């Protein structure tokens, strides 16, 4: 090994440890018996699901169900609205196209906190506060710019010749989209859908502002789980939060780099 290789290996090892160690510790401490956590042993050796069980009964179960409903609803609504727009941006040249794209980038950059105040006030008036549909509407506002931009770059990456072949064989433009374009785009769009789900799953500010009894998981953690005096219960909450994140990296890892390489 050359000296430069040793330096490289050391750096890589340090960066990987820096990323993984806190996750491993949080997971280990979340399943350690209380007595062991409050002892001086850095690495616990016993296993218990007590903290998970307490958290579960405290309301994590309902919160997870709510989070899943809101996440799926957000993916469905933002894809229904965003896919056609993304396709139009990728395939058509029309006046004001760049302006529209810039506007969508701007809405994506805009702090979601701004919409939380106004939405809470409006939802209180309409009786949509503390409801899951209300939260789906809010999360869709946050996710839609992302879905439009990412699907536009996915569609732009699909060769136009394949679509033209479809027209030659007599398909309508709707037929071409559903039988040629969409199947080709499906893997990348699935990765984007998972990430959209995570955007909703992870979002805490709007969720805590708009709900009171119908908490999503992060809102539940911020208000209830944080109030427990037992540290390992908090770590158990962190572990529940990161499970979908880890699954996402595991399943969609191949799309990670391409997803962020395009469109900027």
């Amino acid at each position, binding site marked *: 090994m050359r000296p430069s290789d040793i330096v490289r290996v050391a750096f*890589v090892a340090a*960066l*990987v440890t820096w*990323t993984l*160690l*806190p996750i491993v*510790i*949080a997971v280990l401490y979340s399943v350690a018996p209380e007595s062991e*956590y*409050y002892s001086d*042993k*850095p690495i616990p050796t016993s296993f218990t699901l007590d903290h998970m069980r307490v958290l579960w009964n405290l309301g994590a179960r309902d919160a997870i169900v709510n989070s899943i409903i809101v996440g799926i609803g957000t993916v469905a609504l933002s894809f*229904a609205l*965003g896919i*056609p*727009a993304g396709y*139009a*941006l990728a395939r*058509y040249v*029309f006046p004001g196209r760049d302006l*529209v794209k810039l*506007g969508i980038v701007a*809405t994506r*950059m*805009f*702090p979601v*906190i*701004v*919409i939380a*105040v*106004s939405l*809470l006030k409006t939802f209180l008036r309409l009786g949509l506060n503390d409801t899951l549909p209300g939260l789906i509407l*809010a999360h869709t*506002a946050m996710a*839609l710019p992302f879905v439009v931009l990412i699907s536009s770059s996915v569609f732009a990456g699909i060769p136009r010749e394949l*679509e033209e072949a479809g027209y030659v064989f007599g398909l309508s*433009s709707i037929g071409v989209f559903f039988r040629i374009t969409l199947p080709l785009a499906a893997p990348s769009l699935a990765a984007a859908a998972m990430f959209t789900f*995570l955007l909703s799953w*992870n979002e*805490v500010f709007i969720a*805590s*502002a708009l709900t009171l009894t119908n908490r999503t998981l*992060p809102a539940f953690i911020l208000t209830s789980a*944080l109030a427990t005096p037992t*540290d390992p219960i*908090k*770590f158990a*909450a*962190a572990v529940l*939060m*990161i499970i979908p*994140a*880890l699954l996402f*990296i595991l399943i969609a*890892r191949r799309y*990670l*780099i391409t997803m*962020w*390489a395009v469109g*900027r």
Partner: protein
Amino acid sequence: MAPAGREWVKPALLMAPAILYLTIFIVYPIIDTIIIAFFPEGRFSTESLEYLLYSPLSKFWDAIKFTLILAALVVPIETVLALIATLVLLQPFKGRDTAVYILSIPIAISDVAAGLIWYSMLTSKGFVNKVLIELGVIDSPIYFFGYEFRDRALLAIVLAEVWRSMAIVFIIIFAGAQLIHRELFEAADVFGASFWVKLRHILLPMIKPSIQAALIIRTLFAFQVFAVVWILAGRDIPVLAGEAYYNLVEIHRFDVAALYALIIAILSMTTGFLYLRMLRARHLEV
């Protein structure tokens, strides 16, 4: 007929639902927020502003201060770390892809989870304290949390924020670096270029757009820092988004919450504008 023409009816119809939605749920709330902050009873009022600036209950100046301090610490540190990560991971080696995926994990992890994860590292019974005591470096734990340890809580927040958001910077820069053709480096090798020459004259110029994009995104999001601070320090370390949350959710001062939201928005827009101006200026020089 192939949809390659310059027709505009179809794209307009395809775009309309999304644009309408964003108008109702983003553009209108922005206007509404201005109204909530300054026209609470239908008439212009500066009551929210006066509360923000002069009320003894308001933590506005601290919130501005800590938000800017955090952004000024977190964004440069994570950018340098992401650049180092890109450098050591650019050339393929066995296990490289796995390392890239591992470094990307925090991009999917929420700020709530990141705050709690670092709590498990740094609390008095946390991993860091236990290891330091086990090694005999310290006798009693170092306390990071609680009002009297505010400076250390700030350090804990910086660690958690860098840990959480370095991934997005890394992915953007690494993705940009992947687009550089290997031939460029091979040509440089042929001419005997050193590591530093390759870094200075090939890699950095080529990934400059990625670095700029990452910097813009991260700075704007740094102004919205909330959950990590809320979990690790509560209002002991006030930040703008935390004060917005407190006013909105805990004491229901909608006008003050709206004003905080507007301040974050103005801060973001100014920064975005300055970045774009700087980039364009440099672009014209070249």
